[in-house]
Structures are given as structure tokens and as C-alpha cells.
């Protein structure tokens, strides 16, 4: 899952980025409101963590601006402003969750996963498609109750497919979901990962739509 982190404090931003990476997120970090708004408009982030006291443009103003333009990226507001009216204002402006600093990294990660799940209409923590079950919290994948070992990228790719099950995703969309800034992407990286996924999970799960992209089928195809 690729996350945009908007936090002006150097030490906190660095800590959150490192911590969220440990927990399996791809994190892009911006340090002011204008950059945050620009990135949220440019990229389809899975979710965003937004500080409110940002320089150049206040976090709430960023939130209001993107919501006005119907950018529905789930946003978790991470702030020191803890009074009830401020929480209400944050949520009413379009935040999906409101967390007061300091926050436990595991809790932050769990809240982000929950945000993403809700945004994709998934009531359960685990994602399922056919006989494959993906647990984002423990980062494990089981097929017919047998654990299938996947690499980080393979896991992230499968998660991206499962969150958008039944929809065709282009190679560019998948790359944007998988890689944060500064990570080199081989031109055939996605193909390689999909090949590996098919090898480990069978060829019935992910279909190629020529000239468009790939799609994960939720139900087992009728023979």
C-alpha cells in the first residue's frame, strides 16, 4: 500500500516513514501543505496521513481542497490539536480518521489498513478471492489454508489486485501503487511479479487483458 505522509517536523516525519515502512507500507513524505495537495492530485495513493499544522498551506485547507475536487483518497489526520471541536471540524472537512499525537506506529498502521478496507467496501480485515486469503495485518497469504510465502512486492501487488478485485488495472496504476519515490522500477517488473504470483497461486486468479492491463477475478471461474 502506498501512503502519502504530510508532516513538517523532520524527526517525526522520518520516524513515521521508517516505522510505516517496517510495517509494509510504501511511504512518500512531503513537508508542507502545498506539496501534499500537489501529490494527492497527481497520484492515486492508497491513503494519506496528514498533519494539520503544515507550513504554506494548513492541513485542513488541503483536505477541503482535494475533497472539493472529488479526490476520495482516504485521509487520516494526525495532529496535536485534540479538542472536540477541532476533531469534529477535521472529520467534517473530509478526514476519514482523526488521531492525536503521539501515536503508536502499530495503531497507526492498523487504522490505515482499516481506512483502506472501508474505502474499498471490505467489511473484514482479511481480503479473499477464490480460495486465496490475504491478511494485511500479519502480511500472510493462505491458499486453501496453506501459507504461501510471498516476497514484499508480490504481497503488495496481490493486495492491490484484491482491493480492486474485478477491475482491470493498468501497469502504470500498479506501479504507482507499489513503488514510492526514489525506487527504481524495471520496465518489466510488474510482469515478473505477476508471473511469480501465477506460479505460486495458479493461473486462474489473475487474468491478462491485452493492451489494457490485468484483472483479479474474485470468484472461481465455472469450469
Amino acid at each position, binding site marked *: 500500500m502506498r501512503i502519502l505522509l504530510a508532516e513538517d*517536523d523532520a*524527526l*517525526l516525519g522520518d*520516524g513515521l516513514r*521508517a516505522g510505516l515502512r517496517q510495517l509494509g507500507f510504501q511511504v512518500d513524505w512531503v513537508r508542507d501543505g502545498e506539496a501534499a495537495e500537489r501529490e494527492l492530485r497527481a497520484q492515486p495513493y492508497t491513503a494519506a496521513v496528514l498533519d494539520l499544522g503544515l*507550513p504554506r498551506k494548513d492541513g485542513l485547507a488541503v483536505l477541503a481542497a482535494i475533497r472539493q475536487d472529488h479526490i476520495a483518497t482516504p485521509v487520516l489526520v494526525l495532529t496535536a*490539536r485534540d479538542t472536540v471541536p477541532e476533531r469534529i471540524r477535521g472529520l467534517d472537512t473530509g478526514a476519514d480518521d482523526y488521531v492525536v*499525537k*503521539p501515536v503508536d*506506529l502499530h495503531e497507526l498502521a492498523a487504522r490505515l489498513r482499516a481506512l483502506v478496507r472501508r474505502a474499498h467496501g471490505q467489511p473484514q480485515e482479511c481480503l479473499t478471492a477464490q480460495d486465496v486469503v490475504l491478511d494485511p495485518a500479519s502480511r500472510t497469504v493462505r491458499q486453501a489454508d496453506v501459507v504461501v510465502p510471498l516476497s514484499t512486492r508480490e504481497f503488495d501487488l496481490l493486495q492491490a489486485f484484491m482491493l480492486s478485485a474485478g477491475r482491470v488495472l493498468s501497469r502504470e496504476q500498479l506501479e504507482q501503487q507499489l513503488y514510492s519515490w526514489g525506487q527504481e522500477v524495471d520496465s518489466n517488473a510488474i510482469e515478473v511479479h505477476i508471473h511469480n504470483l501465477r506460479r505460486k497461486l495458479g493461473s486462474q486468479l489473475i487474468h491478462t487483458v491485452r493492451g489494457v492491463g490485468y484483472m483479479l477475478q474474485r470468484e472461481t471461474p465455472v469450469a
Partner: protein
Amino acid sequence: MTPASHSLQRRLLMLVLGVVASVWLATAVMTWFDARHELDELLDGHLAQAAAILVLQQGQELGDDNHGQGVDAPSLHRYAPKVAFQVFHEGRLAMRSANAPQQPMAGANKHFKAGFETVQIGGAAWRVFSAYGSENDVQVYVGEETHSRANILWAVLRSTLLPMAVALPLLALALWWAIHRSVAPIRLLGLTLARRRPDALDPLSLDGTPAEMAPMVDALNGLFQRIASLLESERRFTADASHELRTPIAAIRAQAQVALGETDEASRRQALHNTLEGCDRAIHLVDQLLTLSRLEASAVPVMAELDLSALVRQVVADVAPKAIGKGQSLELDAAEPVTMSGNMILLAVLVRNLVDNAVRYSPRAARIRVAVQHSNGQVTLRVEDSGPGLPEADRKRLGERFFRVPGTDEVGSGLGWSIARRIASVHHMTLQVDRSAELGGLAVLVNVTAQGAGRGN
């Protein structure tokens, strides 16, 4: 609420009624004296005239045949019993009114004296006029009971006092109504204030406020406004403080958690270093906050004579290693001693904040110059740098608590300027921020007023 010990309305009513009643009484007293005087003159005149008639009559009619027995004159009017006369001839009573005594009414066997006299006859006071007849052996007395004069006077006085006695309650009622109406705006103001929520700070707006009350309402509204802005700034301070205090702690927590979860040794050490840095930052912030709150709470600090140049030299020496570390050139121009009165510790904090800011916010290899100048009794401390300077809008916001210049990577508390301003103000110094003409960056000027400074010997 305290009980209303003095009702304005009651006081006004009592005062006005008191004044009216006093004036009225004084008028009555004056009328009484005046009337009595006039009445006395008139009735005395009548007595004298009656005596004159008796003297004339006696001269023409009093015959020797009537000697010894006297003549009683008839009583012709209801006032007649109150008037009496006697005519004596050669010491014997020749004629008298029926109510006159046998003895002369005045003089009482002593020397006869012509003129007016007030005497007691039969327990009543009489006004008697005595006169000689045409010859000296005839004496005429005409008397009148003074009681009848008092009756007339009372009648006059009654006509003055009676309307007043009737009018006073009516006047009181009318006054009560008029005053009640006049103090209505004051009552309205009191009611409006009493009905407001205790924390309401919106301005009062009253219909038909009289001119006399306008300053009061204006002053109240001014007060409400000041309190509102004070509360707003306190609210903002609390919000800012919560942000500034929570963020370093959040950073420490995040970095510590990263260190716990990190498997790579180098990354873990880095996270632990970051944790320590976060602690240092939190300590710096707490120190600054404490300094500021002590400054804001304390009264005037203890002042003593000190050498500003020496103080600045010490501070620059303390900060120099940091500047050298950034490859900056830090110069000091404070050769001459400059004595001034001030608090050594606070001034050191002020100077350190200024020099530290210059080092912090100027890039590597920047020039920073600190100077203490003294001319015409004016001492100026200058801190200039060749850094990026500050736009006008940001210059104005310096000194707002927790304001940090946007776009800088440096970690400050955002309190340094508030502290510097506060220290400058207790020393009656002015703080001025400008563009450095020579170095191109920021120039901060601290001006010490003439009384506080003097050239050292």
C-alpha cells in the same frame, strides 16, 4: 449580587423633595416675617389714629360733669372686645371702653411714656399706644390684644402652607414617575448585564442609550473586546503549545518504535540517535517555555551595572563553535566597554537568542556580524547576517509565540523571539528587524535608551 444599598431613584427623589420642601418652608418663613411686619405697621397705625381721635374728642367733649365716674363706650364689632381704650384726666379715669381695666393699661403707675408698648393685662398680651391729650393732664391709652394679630398672621401662613401640604405628596408621585422614567436606561443596562451569560463577550447594544451613558457602554464594549482578543490569543497559544509539545514527543515515540522494530543494525542506531535528538529538542523547548513563563510572570528583574560589550563577547564565544561547524564566519565588533543597567542573565539570553538565530537560519559559509555601537548616549546592539533574510510579512509575525519561519529545515522552538521581545521590553529596549544593507540578510537592532547606558571608563 450585592444588595443595592443606595437606590439612585430613591436618592434622587429624596433630594429633590427635600430641596423643594426646604425652599417652600423658607418662603413661608419669609412670608410670615414680612406679613407680621406689615400687619404691625398697619395696626399700630390704626391704634395711633384711634388715640388721635380720642385726644381730639376729649378736647372738645370731655366736660367737668363727667368727672370721677368715667364713661363706658359701647362694643360695636365682634373684634371690639379685643380692642380697648382709656382716657385719664388729671390722673383720674375719664372714659374707657367696657373691656378696659381701671388702671392705666401702660406705664403701670410709673412715669407716663408716650408711644407703643406691649404689656400683660389679665393674662393676655396687649399692644398699647399711649398719648397725651391736648393738655398734658390728659392721657389716652388705646390697646389691642396681640392674640388677634397672631390670628391674622396664622391665616396668612395657612394660605401658604396648606397648598404645599397638599401638593407635596402629589409632587412626590410626579417626581417618582419622572425619575423612574429617567433612570430606565440604567436599569435596562443592569438587567441586560445580569441576563448575559457570564462568558458572553459580544458587544452590548442598547436602544436609546442616553448621551451620559454612552461612554460607559463604550468602555464596557471596549473591555469585552479586549478580553475576547486576550482569550483568543490564549486559546491559540494553548493550541500551538499542544502542537509544539506533542510533536517532539510523537517523534521520540516513533523513532524509539522504529529502533525496536529495526533489524538492520545501522538503521537501528540511526533511529536511536534520532530518539536522542528528539529528547534534546524537547528539553530545549521546555527550557524556552519555562524562560518565557517566568518572564511573563515575574515583576521587574534585579538590575545592575554591567558591561554590554563583555557580555556580548561571552555569548559570541559560546555560539562560535556552532558557526565554525557550519563553516560560517562570525565576527564581533565590541572593542570599547559599554556600561548599562540591566539583568545579566536575561540580557545574555536575549543576545544568545539573536546570535543563535543568525547562525541557525543562515546557510553554510554565511557571514554573521555582531556589533555593539555607542554614539550620543545611544547604545545599539546589531546582529547581521548574509542569510536569506525575511519577507516583510514574516518579519511582522516574528515574536508570535510558536511562529516559525516557513520553509526552514532548522528545528527551533518558535519561542526565541517572544523571549527576546519580552526581555527587551523589561529593559526598555526596542527591537528592530530590518534588511542588512551590508550583508544582505537579516539585521536585528537592539536600541538601549540613553538613561540605561553610558560609556565605560
